[in-house]
């Protein structure tokens, strides 16, 4: 911010001869048009109209330059606190961070904040550029006192490589060329440092991790597991384990970018072929059996919140980690960190740009490592299921005492524990049950407004199926709330729990062989998606009983709409709470037009088409 960032980038590009002449010419025109009296290098990097108008950087811009020694990408990120989320985007993939300090102002709050964010995102190398030395007479004392002060602060950060360079970006001192104005400085100019800093050892070449991205099966004879090597090295002939199944096999072939190779390492995109035919799908991970990640469903992490809608405890979010996407919730905020002072504070929510240490509970465990050891398998993003916005970014913390490693021993102990619990059903296969019942069990999930006719339809379907000799049962919203779920109300959280319990019951009934007809308003898309996940994609049949609010209100069989209108029932779907209509239901029934018999007919026709009924 006003400390010469754009001038430094411009100087770096210009002096290393990396600006095209036509860009330089249009830069001169732009600068003149904006009323600047000299070339404003900021206009080179601030690519958006509103950025040039306001003279600030809003979003990260990527600029390329190269020297005979190295190829660089500069992520030009905004320094303002309100654009922290854009800064972390740039920082997440950086090898080195340059923090600018105006020599006249010394160490400011923002200088500390930027250093903290760089270390939080695991950038291994830090350069503190003490700029505008020309305005303090190239004074060694000023340089020393600023670097001493910053060093005291940076000692508290995990970043080990921190160096200080005095410079004047405006005049080009110590940017590309060594300055003759500061003979007391015996370190390298910035560009020489950038060209020589050792980054090869930043790569984790020890812990082999291949998150499976895609399964390639072009024909009967070929089955390959495609993915990007996150860390470590794998060789043809290596013994490997597929996680979380724990199945062991051997690497038969490695294809990297279309060619057979003997070994692979990060960040290569490869395809592995294994000796044995084992079931592996997207979201699984291939590693060496003796070096495996954690398998954790409860994780502790540092997160940065990036959404204008604050983080809500216990609300359901989507978490994307490597190639695995799961649902989960943040169950606790241990504290938030003031990035300016590093002080910890209690918090029950995180606002835009706030950083906190949290616990998260995931519906399926993830295969992860500590972020400090592995940027690829230690990072995740948090997505808001309603807006689909990337709402947060997280970094897994080492809690070895809490997490379990996905060792073959641990995985098999988990399996035998599970088989103990299900032993009594273990002797009857699903095929036997299907023969017994004459159908494959599914859950027909009816969703729609109160008064749309779901229950009537559900019981009619039950009657028809029973007449045809199928064992089935209706789970009805009102009935369940009288018993199993009588402790729940109608808040978003309680509605979520209501649906979760019903879905678990439906799943059990399906496993016992019954067809379930579930009749629930289930207004939120996310809740229905959750039910689908629990019951299983192949067993979940979504039926949309479509009726307008007006029609339902007219019918109002239970007098609920009248009471909701009077304000006696809060959070009433269709009146004071939203209903997300399903986007692509398996069956849609127009409640205003079709009769109950027609509705039953369409549902049964769909079940026959699915080959649920013979």
């Amino acid at each position, binding site marked *: 911010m006003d400390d010469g960032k754009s001038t430094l980038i411009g100087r770096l590009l210009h002096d290393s001869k990396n600006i095209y002449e036509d860009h330089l010419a249009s830069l001169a025109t732009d600068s003149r048009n904006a009323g600047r009296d000299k070339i404003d290098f900021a206009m080179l990097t601030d690519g958006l109209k509103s950025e040039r108008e306001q003279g600030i950087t809003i979003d990260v811009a990527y600029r390329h330059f190269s020297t005979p020694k190295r190829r660089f990408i500069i992520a030009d990120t905004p320094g303002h606190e309100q654009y922290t989320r854009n800064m972390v985007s740039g920082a997440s993939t950086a090898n080195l961070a340059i923090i600018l300090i105006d020599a006249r102002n010394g160490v400011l709050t923002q200088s500390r904040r930027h250093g903290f964010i760089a270390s939080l995102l695991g950038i291994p190398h830090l350069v503190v550029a003490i700029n505008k030395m020309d305005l303090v007479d190239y004074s060694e004392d000023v340089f020393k006192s600023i670097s001493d002060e910053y060093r005291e602060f940076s000692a508290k950060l995990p970043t080990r490589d921190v160096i200080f360079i005095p410079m004047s970006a405006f005049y080009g001192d110590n940017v590309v060329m060594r300055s003759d104005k500061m003979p007391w400085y015996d370190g390298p100019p910035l560009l020489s440092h950038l060209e020589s800093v050792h980054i090869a050892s930043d790569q984790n070449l020890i812990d082999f991790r291949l998150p499976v991205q895609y399964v390639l099966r072009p024909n009967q004879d070929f089955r390959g597991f495609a993915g990007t090597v996150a860390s470590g090295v794998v060789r043809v002939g290596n013994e490997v384990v597929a996680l979380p199944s724990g199945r062991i096999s051997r690497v038969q072939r490695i294809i990297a970018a279309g060619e057979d190779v003997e070994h692979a390492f990060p*960040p290569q995109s490869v395809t592995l072929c294994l000796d044995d035919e084992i079931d592996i799908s997207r979201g699984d991970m291939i590693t060496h059996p003796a070096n495996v990640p954690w398998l954790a469903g409860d994780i502790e992490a540092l997160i940065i919140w990036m959404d204008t809608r604050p983080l809500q405890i216990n609300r359901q979010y989507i978490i994307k980690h490597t190639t695995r996407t799961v649902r989960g919730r943040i169950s606790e905020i241990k504290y938030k960190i003031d990035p300016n002072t590093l002080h910890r504070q209690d918090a029950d929510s995180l606002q835009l740009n706030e950083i906190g240490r949290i616990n998260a509970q995931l519906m399926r465990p993830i295969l992860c490592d500590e972020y400090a050891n592995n940027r690829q398998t230690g990072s995740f993003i948090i997505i808001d299921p309603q807006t689909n916005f990337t709402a947060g970014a997280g970094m897994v913390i080492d809690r070895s005492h809490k997490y379990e490693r996905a060792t073959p021993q641990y995985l098999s102990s988990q399996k035998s524990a599970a088989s103990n619990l299900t032993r009594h059903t273990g002797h009857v296969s699903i095929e036997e049950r299907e023969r017994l019942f004459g159908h494959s069990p599914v859950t027909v999930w009816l969703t729609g407004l109160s008064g749309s006719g779901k229950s009537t339809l559900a019981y009619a379907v039950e009657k028809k199926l029973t007449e045809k000799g199928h064992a089935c049962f209706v789970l009805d919203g009102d009935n369940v709330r009288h018993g199993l779920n009588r402790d729940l109300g109608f808040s978003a959280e309680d509605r979520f729990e209501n649906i979760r319990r019903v879905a678990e019951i439906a799943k059990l009934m399906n496993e016992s062989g019954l067809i379930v007809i579930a009749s629930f308003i289930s207004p939120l898309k996310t809740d229905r998606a959750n039910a689908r996940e629990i019951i299983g994609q192949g067993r979940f049949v979504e039926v949309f009983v479509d009726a307008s609010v007006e029609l339902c209100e007219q019918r109002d069989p239970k007098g609920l709409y009248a009471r909701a209108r009077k304000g006696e029932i809060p959070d009433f779907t269709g009146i004071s709470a939203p209903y997300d209509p399903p986007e692509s239901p398996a069956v849609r029934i127009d409640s205003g037009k079709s009769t109950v018999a027609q509705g039953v007919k369409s549902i049964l026709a769909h079940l026959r088409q699915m080959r649920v009924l013979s």
Partner: protein
Amino acid sequence: METLQLSNLKTLEAESIHIIREVVAEFERPVMLYSVGKDSSVMVRLAQKAFAPGKIPFPLLHVDTSMKFPEMYEFRDQFCRESGADLRVYRFEEAIAAGVNPWDLGTVKCCAQLKTQALLNALQEGQYDAAFGGARRDEEKSRAKERVYSFSDEFGQWDPKNQRPELWSLYNGRIRKGESIRVFPLSNWTELDVWMYIYSENIPVVPMYFAKEREMVQREGRLVPVYENTQLQECEKPEKLMCRFRTLGCYPCTGAVESTAANVAEIVEEMMVARNSERITRLIDHDQDSSMEQKKREGYF
């Protein structure tokens, strides 16, 4: 000792393959925008590598303005035949029949119809939820701001001030019905990288990139090729010049540069000492203030 470090080109290649695979794994109907140019050639090669020994699991889509150079059509058909790609061509016939052209309407309106609107029509018609484009961040300043996964709303529009944060290589491809994601697997490539890759992988490109003597005319500081139907102004005199095309677009709006680089190796050499950017020859980048940003907001690639 073996080295466990990837070269710059191999690193870029690996990143692009990762992006292409991620899209195929997460989207229902991806498509690759194919513009016949060098970047498209590279993108298709990367897609082949990503799914080898299988075939590319999505179609290529050429949004054809009907104003491309004849050499481009010829190359397109041969390239797609030889690479076994499934090419779909979309032309906005209504606008083409109405005679939309840059001479009468100006480049801004012509692009809006034959490119932007045509593209939106094509994406909607094919119900594509993800579209790969060959744009690079080094091409132009508003492109330097673009994410790898760029979100478009249901009207195909881009909002540069409210982009989803993008960290690590964790791309957020979640969308609602009607919305889509534009994906740029070549985001981190430069023009020189593209040529180096074409060289090292021996990738075919349209011969117009190579220098030869062509019939040209100077127009507003640009070298424009002369064809039978080129409308010449009074003061304009065609002349024979050694030149080549650094980028390929529609014939009325694409200029050439004087050059003697007649093969890929010579182009690489020329690139290393280039003093001007590649898009200097594209009229449409300069037709209004912040012109590329404006076009992109409306749905242009």
